[in-house]
């Protein structure tokens, strides 16, 4: 279902409201819901009737479309920037013509809206990055991006909750456990939250990593 044609906070709100409703009040036959920036994909049980399900969802959309989505929380994400933890920060220096210090400063001053979680478990699609930090993806994607990597791709920034292949520019790493396998609905970062990054020292990183068991 397309709920808009571009990336905007108002479209996000519509999708977020609808999805929150569908998660709390599951529809028979819908097995998975995939939010996007401007759309929502429902996957159905093999025996579900597609036309009936679409009708039910459209009715729900009519009902909820003027209601407000739940209030997201502000999540502070500590990041050890640069060095071995953010191996591509020099690429951002190169493309942005800003100093490393300036890049870190700009990256952590914004609040980023979590448009949705997608790609891999718990991966937040964050909106609102300073466009001066825009850096194209690396030429050859890495086979394994370390868990907790904070990265930039084009005009977007994100966090890798699990080790995975990836082509984003790594600028730092968080010691926090982003995705909670034993209680996934209560993972640290949820759709609709705001994320703020905060630069930390190596010592602080190690300390937090130990206490988080990440």
């Amino acid at each position, binding site marked *: 279902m397309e709920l808009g044609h571009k990336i905007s906070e108002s479209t996000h709100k519509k999708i977020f409201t609808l999805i929150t409703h569908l998660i709390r009040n599951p529809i028979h036959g819908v097995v*998975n819901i*995939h939010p*996007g920036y401007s*759309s929502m994909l429902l996957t159905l049980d093999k*025996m579900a009737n597609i036309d009936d399900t679409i009708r039910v969802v459209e009715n729900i959309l009519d009902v909820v479309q003027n209601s407000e989505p739940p209030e997201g929380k502000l999540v502070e994400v500590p990041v050890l920037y640069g060095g071995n933890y953010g191996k591509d920060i020099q690429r951002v220096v190169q493309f942005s013509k800003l100093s490393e210090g300036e890049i870190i400063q700009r990256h952590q001053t914004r609040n980023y809206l979590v448009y*949705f979680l997608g*790609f891999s478990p718990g991966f937040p699609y964050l909106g609102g990055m300073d466009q001066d930090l825009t850096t194209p993806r690396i030429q050859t994607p890495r086979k394994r991006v370390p868990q907790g990597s904070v990265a930039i791709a084009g005009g977007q920034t994100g966090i890798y909750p699990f080790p995975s292949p990836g082509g984003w520019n790594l600028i730092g790493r968080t010691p926090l456990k982003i*995705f909670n396998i034993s209680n996934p609905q209560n993972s640290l970062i949820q759709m609709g939250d705001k994320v703020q990054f905060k630069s930390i020292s190596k010592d602080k990183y190690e300390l937090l990593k130990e206490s988080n068991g990440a």
Partner: protein
Amino acid sequence: MGLEVLRAGLQSTVQDQGRLGYAHLGVSASGAADNFSLRIGNILVGNPKQSAGIEMTIIGDKYRFKSDAYIALTGSQFEAELDNKPIPFWQGWSINKGQILDIRSTKTGARCYLCVAGGINIEDVMGAKTTHLTSGIGGTHGRILKKLDELDFGTLDDSINPVKKLNESITADNKIIRVTKGIQWLWFHKKQKNKFFQHQYRVTDLSNRMGLRLIGNTINNKKESEIITAGIPLGAIQIPGDGQPIISFVEHQTTGGYPIIANVISADLRKVGQLKPGDYFQFELTSFSRAEKLKVDQEKFIHSSHHD
């Protein structure tokens, strides 16, 4: 009650019907690559639908049974011996404690399944036993089986009777994969779509449970090369910038940015699960109503197998 892995194959994992209900958190369902064969295997040993079995890929495992068991092998034919004697596929078989089951190379498709009465009993992660290898969730510590792993069997509810053998031949022809129009179908000119269906594609080495990367006719689209990031279903055929199709498979990304030209029909997903690197096949366009009918027919067939 259980078995021990004496030799691990190329990529063996514990699989079930998938981890449903978490796509909005970025978690794709995973589950058996050839879901049909796993379900039939469960019917053959009298398990409920959701029981877990072992999925083997290209080269199978060698096991010692630590207890009596009742098993079935399904999926593609692999070289398989029980105490050095060939053991048939697609039928229930009694195993005595101490017997050794040796499953070697495939003779046909990519995957075979071992189902055991009672199912493979491991802890559920987010409501399922399936291994999601890409993110290391579920199964045996999120990884492939290795030598000396021990797996327990569950206890069986007596209400379901095993089906000794299936009468019909149930192997599928992997040379044709049927698809319906994808959400970005109109992004592609008629000429490009003809190219997509005209010739065979080859499955490359860069193919796994997450996706199958293909080589063949290059498909260009008339619009931008990327869409606004949106949900991707199982079986979506994406056309990235280089024009070579990718079939998103059981461990697929929940969202992505490449246009989707077509979707593999549900009834043919089992065939995709049996494709291996180097295999050639051709896409064939079919209607939504035909796809729906083929899916329902497949479900009916599976249900009817209970009462053979």
